[in-house]
C-alpha cells in the first residue's frame, strides 16, 4: 500500500491576486481579473482583453526582467509563496528526496520573440547567449531546483492546457513509488506577448467582449464566444503523509487520483462526444478508489469556448449519468482567465482549497442558460457545502486530458 499524498502548501500569482489568501478571497467573491491589455498594442486584434498579473515586480524573487523570462519569474515567485505557506525552508528542501515537477505550455515565449526580433533587425551578434536556457520550457523546474537546492526528480511537462495537471499527476505517481518525500509541483505561463496572443487571436478561439472585459469569459453561458488568456502561476507542495505528520504540517487536501487520456482526434478541437475526456475522469476516480457518489464538486476545465463547455458537459454526463445534475461544477477561469500550462495546477490548488474551506468558488457571468449546458455550474455566488471529495478537469489542445481527484484531508 503506497503512502497518501497531501497538499501542504499553496502559492498563487494570479490576475485575481498574489498569494493564497488574496486569490482565494477574490475567487469566492466572484472578482474578475480580466481587463484591457496594457502591455502591447492590441488595436488590430479581435480580442483585446486578458488576465494580466499586476503589481508583480515588487516581489523579492523577481530577477532582472531583461535576463529572465516572465514565466521563470512567475514560477519562482509562486514556489516561494507555496514553500512559505507550507512552513518549509531551504534546509528542509535541499536534498535528493525533494523533487520538482512543473507544467508550461509555451515556456519562455517572450524571450524567443524578443531574440528573433534582435536577430532579424540587428544580426547574430545581438542574440542573447542565454536565449536557449530561457526559452527551454524546463527552465522553470530547473530554476526552482537551483533556488532551493532540490536534488531529486526534476521535470517540466508540456501538454498545453493540461501541463500543470499532468505535472501534478506524474509527481504523485513518483511519490507513490517511493521516489520522493516532497514534490514542488505546479504550472507557470506568460503568454501575453504579441506573437502568442496574435496566434490565439487569429485562430479565433478567444472571446470578443472587449467593451466589458470582466464579462468576457462566460463559461457555460449561452453567450460565450471564446476563452480569455491569462498569465501567472500556481505551485503546490505535495508531501507524503508520513513526512507531513512528522513535522505536524497542516494539509489542505489529499491528492488521491490521476487519470490521463488522449482523444487522438484533432490539434485543437475536442472529440465531439467527449468520450476521451470522460475516460480521464473515470481513470482518476478508479485510481482514487472513489465512487461517483462521493464526488461533491468538479472544478471544470470550462474555458468559455462553444466547443469545450458543451463537450465537457457531455463528458460529465457520460461519467455521472443521472447524478450529473447533483454534482456542482464551476469554472474559475471565468475570473482568472485561461492560464494554459498553469491552469491545471492553479485549479488543482483551488479544488484543494474548496475541500479545505467547504466553499465552492462560482462561475461568474453565467447569465443566460444554454439548453445544451444544463448542469449546476454554481452561477455567480460562492456556495458553502459539506463535501468529501472533488475532481479537477484539464482538457487541452491536442485532446491531452488530465483529471485529478482529491479527498478532504485526513
Amino acid at each position, binding site marked *: 500500500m503506497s503512502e497518501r499524498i497531501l497538499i501542504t502548501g499553496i502559492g498563487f500569482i494570479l490576475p485575481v491576486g498574489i498569494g493564497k489568501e488574496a486569490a482565494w478571497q477574490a475567487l469566492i467573491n466572484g472578482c474578475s481579473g480580466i481587463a484591457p491589455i496594457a502591455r502591447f498594442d492590441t488595436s488590430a486584434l479581435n480580442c483585446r482583453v486578458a488576465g494580466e498579473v499586476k503589481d508583480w515586480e515588487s516581489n523579492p524573487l523577481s530577477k532582472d526582467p531583461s*535576463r529572465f523570462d516572465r514565466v521563470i519569474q512567475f514560477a519562482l515567485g509562486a514556489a516561494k509563496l507555496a514553500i512559505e505557506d507550507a512552513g518549509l525552508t531551504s534546509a528542509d528542501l535541499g536534498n535528493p528526496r525533494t523533487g520538482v515537477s512543473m507544467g508550461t505550455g509555451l515556456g519562455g515565449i517572450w524571450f524567443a520573440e524578443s531574440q528573433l526580433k534582435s536577430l532579424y533587425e540587428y544580426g547574430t*551578434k*545581438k542574440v*542573447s*547567449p*542565454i536565449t536557449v*536556457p530561457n526559452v527551454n520550457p524546463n527552465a522553470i523546474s530547473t530554476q526552482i531546483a537551483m533556488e532551493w537546492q532540490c536534488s531529486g526528480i526534476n521535470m517540466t511537462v508540456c501538454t498545453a492546457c493540461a501541463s500543470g495537471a499532468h505535472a501534478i499527476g506524474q509527481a504523485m505517481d513518483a511519490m507513490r513509488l517511493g521516489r520522493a518525500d516532497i514534490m514542488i509541483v505546479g504550472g507557470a505561463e506568460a503568454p501575453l506577448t504579441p506573437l502568442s496572443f496574435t496566434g490565439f487571436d487569429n485562430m479565433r478561439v478567444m472571446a470578443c467582449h472587449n467593451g466589458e472585459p470582466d464579462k468576457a469569459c462566460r463559461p457555460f453561458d449561452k453567450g460565450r464566444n471564446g476563452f480569455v488568456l491569462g498569465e501567472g502561476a500556481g505551485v503546490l507542495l505535495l508531501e507524503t503523509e508520513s513526512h507531513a505528520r512528522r513535522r505536524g504540517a497542516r494539509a489542505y487536501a489529499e491528492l488521491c487520483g490521476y487519470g490521463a487520456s488522449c482523444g487522438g482526434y484533432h490539434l485543437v478541437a475536442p472529440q465531439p462526444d467527449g468520450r476521451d475526456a470522460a475516460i480521464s475522469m473515470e481513470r482518476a476516480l478508479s485510481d482514487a478508489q472513489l465512487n461517483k457518489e462521493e464526488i461533491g464538486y468538479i472544478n471544470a476545465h470550462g474555458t468559455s469556448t462553444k466547443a469545450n463547455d458543451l463537450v465537457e458537459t457531455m463528458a460529465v454526463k457520460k461519467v455521472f449519468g443521472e447524478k450529473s445534475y447533483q454534482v456542482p461544477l464551476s469554472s474559475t477561469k471565468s475570473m482568472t482567465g485561461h492560464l494554459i500550462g498553469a491552469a491545471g495546477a492553479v485549479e488543482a490548488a483551488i479544488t484543494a482549497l474548496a475541500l479545505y474551506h467547504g466553499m465552492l468558488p462560482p462561475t461568474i457571468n453565467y447569465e443566460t442558460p444554454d439548453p445544451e449546458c444544463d448542469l449546476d455550474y454554481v452561477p455567480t455566488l460562492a456556495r458553502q457545502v459539506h463535501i468529501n471529495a472533488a475532481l479537477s478537469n484539464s482538457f487541452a489542445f491536442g485532446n491531452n486530458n488530465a483529471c485529478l481527484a482529491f479527498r478532504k484531508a485526513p
Partner: protein
Amino acid sequence: MIIEDELESIFEKYIPATPYRKPTPETLLADLGVDSLGFIELIADIESVFNLNITNEDIDKLKTVGDVIKLVSGRAG
C-alpha cells in the same frame, strides 16, 4: 577612461549585488562571482557595446579584469 567606465558598468550588471565588490584590474575573473553563462553574456555585451569580436581563443587568455581592459583598449575605437 571612457572605456574603463563603460566596462565597469557592464561588469556591474553581472556581479552579484550583495555583497558588491568593485572589481579592480587585478581582480581574477574567476573571483567575480559570475557563473559561466553570465560570463558569456558579459562578453557578448562587451562585443556589442564596443562593436568588436572576441574569439574563444581570446577568452581563454583572459585571466583578470585588467586583461579585459587591455583587450578592449587595444581593439576599440
